[in-house]
């Protein structure tokens, strides 16, 4: 080990051009980097990023209408007849606002019961589970 090191030192002393030292002066003298096809490709954005999650109405593109009382009543509680909050329905802010407006209109026009959910629609498919909210309640 020691011997090999000493021989290497001797060689360097004898022929300094054969060995390249990693010094700053040497790096600055090196020719500028030439772009070639073998160089790693830099992407602008990460191709593995997930698509942002969308709420039920935004992803399906369903428009809320006050005349469609059956759809509106899917967002109404079977127990209390009140509209579920957005942490349960899983709608974005805009859609929740629209939902509340549409339900208010529908009730005013008389297409929808006011205090209860229509028992005809009580067995409609569930869009969400009120016992497993998406987020904790905002007031909690």
């Amino acid at each position: 080990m020691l011997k090999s090191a000493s021989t290497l030192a001797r060689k360097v002393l004898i022929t300094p051009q054969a060995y390249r030292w990693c010094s700053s002066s040497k790096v600055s003298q090196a020719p500028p980097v030439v772009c070639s096809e073998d160089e790693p490709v830099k992407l602008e954005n990460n191709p593995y990023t997930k698509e942002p999650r969308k709420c039920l109405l935004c992803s399906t593109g369903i428009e809320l209408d006050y005349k469609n009382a059956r759809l509106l009543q899917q967002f109404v509680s079977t127990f209390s007849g009140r509209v579920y909050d957005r942490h349960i329905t899983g709608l974005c802010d805009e859609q929740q606002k629209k939902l509340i407006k549409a339900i208010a209109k529908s009730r005013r026009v008389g297409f929808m019961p006011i205090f209860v959910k229509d028992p005809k629609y009580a067995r409609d498919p569930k869009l969400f589970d009120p016992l497993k909210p998406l987020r904790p309640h905002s007031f909690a």
Partner: protein
Amino acid sequence: MPFYEVSVITRSLSKSDLVKALTRAGNTLLDHGAVIEKVESLGHRDLPYKRLAKQTNEPVYASNFFIFKAHMSREARQKTKSILTHDLDTVQVDLIQVDTLPSQKIQCNLDEILKSPAERQAVADLRENQKMGHFTRQMIYKRTEKEWKSIPKSYPIAPPRP
């Protein structure tokens, strides 16, 4: 002229009476300067709750639903609404304004909502320009006050004279 949808729920009527009631409703709209685009029937349906017909007080459980799509002025809306609601053949009438402009595309922010509060932009904005209560402001002042009061104004032992 704003665009309205006039929903008319009649009491249970025979076919000829229904035609009369509808033509009366349409004529009142036209008399007040409305432009009717379309008349639609939503069918014979169950009402969401029991209603009572005017004057006869007979219960209405199911009846015919109609919609007039019409353009009219705001004054005409008020007048026609009072006329149609006081009509003996109607159970419920309402005029609802509908936006004719194409709705703006909704930016879904569910992804933002599901983030933890530390990563949410709304919370960051709140922190940025925070409103401080009087109590909090006082506490911060007292803490800083303690710091500058702890610096002695004069030395306990006078420094040596030059």
